[in-house]
């Protein structure tokens, strides 16, 4: 595979510099560290925060449909706006915000390849201006279940022996590392992984400059080395669903997986659930290969189109 399957979802810093002020374009920054946006952002970009803006502040869930519509209106996003996400940490949170926008069916979402790091490396200017977008109207559909996996669905998926990719670090995957006592809210009662899940740490998908690896490298990583199949239903998870949104983006848009969902409950839910299966160690399940049997002929099948 010489090219990404959906190259149109990635834009360069140059494209952003040229189009940031276009009326049909809204640039959105999403970061781990909110002060970075204040320190300097892409001129004209608004900030949408994954914790404060995208999540419900009482229940553990995303904002509801009305909340999402309100957010878009406030930030000057209409249903037909091209929304370009970027951020720190190799676009973790940008991919997470992208994913939430897809959850609510926003048609035209893109990622600025390389995020803040690449913008900086390209020597482009940062702005500290306050951005006041004009309020828009926005109507969102109900959540698109095809991008999100809920716990019971993951349980069924796992029992059926379908593909799971755990994108956490090898230490978290093996169960060697639980989160620290000082972070009880980000920890889990049990360490390990969902039986059958292959471990492909998210960081392997990106280059040092924050951009995504080439189609060829990604294909080797996911479909050859990890034996994931483009046409097999696949679920990605991590700890709270953020790193796995990046992997979800890579699988769905760059490699053209036809059915991939993000399990946003991730290990913070699974590792605290009563009665769900957990295994420890470096192998998906007791050393056997969980994905090697089905769809052995997949390599010759062209990827199914995905409508972004």
């Amino acid at each position: 595979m010489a090219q990404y399957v959906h190259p149109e979802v990635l834009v360069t810093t140059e494209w952003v510099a040229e189009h940031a002020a276009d009326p049909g374009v809204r640039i959105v920054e999403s970061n781990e560290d909110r002060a970075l946006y204040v320190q300097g952002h892409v001129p004209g970009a608004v900030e949408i925060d994954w914790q404060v803006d995208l999540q419900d502040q009482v229940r553990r869930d995303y904002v509801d449909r009305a909340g999402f519509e309100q957010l878009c209106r406030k930030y000057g996003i209409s249903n037909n706006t091209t929304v370009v996400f970027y951020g720190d940490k190799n676009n973790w949170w940008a991919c997470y915000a992208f994913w939430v926008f897809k959850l609510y069916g926003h048609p035209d979402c893109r990622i600025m390849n390389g995020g803040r790091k690449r913008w900086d490396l390209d020597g482009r200017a940062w702005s500290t201006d306050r951005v006041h977008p004009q309020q828009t109207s926005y109507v969102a559909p109900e959540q698109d279940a095809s991008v999100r996996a809920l716990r019971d669905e993951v349980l069924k998926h796992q029992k059926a022996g379908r593909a799971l990719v755990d994108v956490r670090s090898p230490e978290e995957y093996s169960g060697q590392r639980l989160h620290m006592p000082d972070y009880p809210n980000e920890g889990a009662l049990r360490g390990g992984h969902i039986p059958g899940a292959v471990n492909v740490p998210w960081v392997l998908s990106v280059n040092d400059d924050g951009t995504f690896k080439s189609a060829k490298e990604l294909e080797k990583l996911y479909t050859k080395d990890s034996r994931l199949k483009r046409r097999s239903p696949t679920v990605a998870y991590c700890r709270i669903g953020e790193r796995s949104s990046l992997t979800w983006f890579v699988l769905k848009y760059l490699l053209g997986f036809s059915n991939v969902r993000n399990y946003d409950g991730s290990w913070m839910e699974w590792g605290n659930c009563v009665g769900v299966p957990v295994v420890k160690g470096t192998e998906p399940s007791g050393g056997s290969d969980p994905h090697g049997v089905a769809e052995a002929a997949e390599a010759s099948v062209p990827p199914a189109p995905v409508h972004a």
Partner: protein
Amino acid sequence: MTSVETRLNSIISEFADLDGREKLELLLDFANRLPPLSATYLERKAIEDRRVHECQTPVFLWPEVIAGRARLVAEVAPEAPTVKGFVALLAEAIEDQPAAEAEGLPDDILERMGLAEVLGILRTRGLRSIVGHVKRGITRQFNAKT
């Protein structure tokens, strides 16, 4: 009221009437004031395990007690300015104050600054754990020396 409390209250009052964005701007001012590590601490950084492993970005802390007085030497990666600003703020609050007072740093500083709602639950708890880390470090040193 102890001198650490007085200092903290003064810092908290600076934040009180600001909107979310201004609070972060003020926190950046604190971050910019955190001095770089001296040569001595750079050497120590290479050999001592001072990294706060709970933090995903590199944060190195030396909560210290010298002649009964507290201080906090720190290095925080520039890509984490919120953490850097908060650590700088803690360092300013306890600098050269009696160690017993620094041990009593309250846990609800971010709530009182109005930053908790700007940062959200997970970040707030993460930063709060840094307060715990500093307090425990001061206590350990204080106990070792008394």
